[in-house]
């Protein structure tokens, strides 16, 4: 079956196939490699608590209604290191690296959002 089908592929067809595959790979790399983030916007209770550059490693304590959320910035990545929220979703999300990524600790009303040099969308309606 396989060899029968391969008979129908001529030299140019192979060329087209390879060209198409290269196109797909290039498109994937171009469109799926998200822009690296430059800054982290830390919000508490809906208001911007602090905007920090990712270039400097530091730990930031953010107060919320339940207690203190600890945000760690290390090697151009950011994460919520500890949080008093009961389900720990934002802590388990781990390191954020790309622009547009966001970790929300809803019970403690704390969030970290990474932004690049240009602002991406934050909602989409149709």
């Amino acid at each position, binding site marked *: 079956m396989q060899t029968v*089908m391969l008979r*129908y*592929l*001529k*030299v*140019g*067809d192979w*060329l*087209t*196939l390879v060209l*198409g*595959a290269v*196109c*797909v790979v290039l*498109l*994937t790399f171009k*469109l*799926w490699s998200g822009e690296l983030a430059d800054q982290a916007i830390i919000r508490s209770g809906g208001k911007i608590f602090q905007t920090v550059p990712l270039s400097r490693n530091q730990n930031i304590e953010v107060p919320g209604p339940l207690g203190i959320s600890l945000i760690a910035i290390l090697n151009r990545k950011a994460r919520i290191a500890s949080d008093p929220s009961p389900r720990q979703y934002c802590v388990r999300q781990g390191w954020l690296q790309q622009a547009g990524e966001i970790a929300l600790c809803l019970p403690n009303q704390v969030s970290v959002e990474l932004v690049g040099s240009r602002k991406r*969308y934050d909602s*989409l309606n*149709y």
Partner: protein
Amino acid sequence: MRIEDCSEGVTERGADEGVNSLLAPRASILLHTTAEDHHVARMAAVALGLTVLEAAIPSPLPGVKPGLANIVTLIVLARYGWRTAAWVSLLRVLAGSLLFGNFLTPGFFLSLSGALLSLLVLAFAQYLPRRWFGPVSQSIFAAFAHIAGQMAVVYWWLIPHAGIAYLIPIFAAAALVFGTVNGLIAARFINNAVNSD
């Protein structure tokens, strides 16, 4: 195709036929169809059947479909030329939309834009040297053109947002895979026809 009023046609006919047409209920419009029209209709019907068939295949992502009807377009292109292929393809889009009830909805315009751009690309791809390029190349080019046409409509009309770019790699990969498979199937049919002649 020629459309004419039936009343003129009656006077041209023989006497006995005239009586028959007087007794039979008269259509107000008579379509004079050629053999080519019948052929286009037949091929479009086959394409339509494949469209309905693949609508039953579940898809992981809306919009990722094998596009089996394009096999028919490729075969028609190889055997009867671009003009006939365009007829078959566009009739399939129109009739398919009527069948699924999405005529003039966004889905219809997505199909139409994909079909139009595929046909445009096929108009050039058919002149690729036959010695080296077979239906598989044409199919892959047409599949990519189909995706490009659809994404253009999505971007300019439905979701004018750069976020849809995230979907392009998926659609492109699907175009490559399904384009190749459809091309191989079409090549098999075309080759069979050549061998049997």
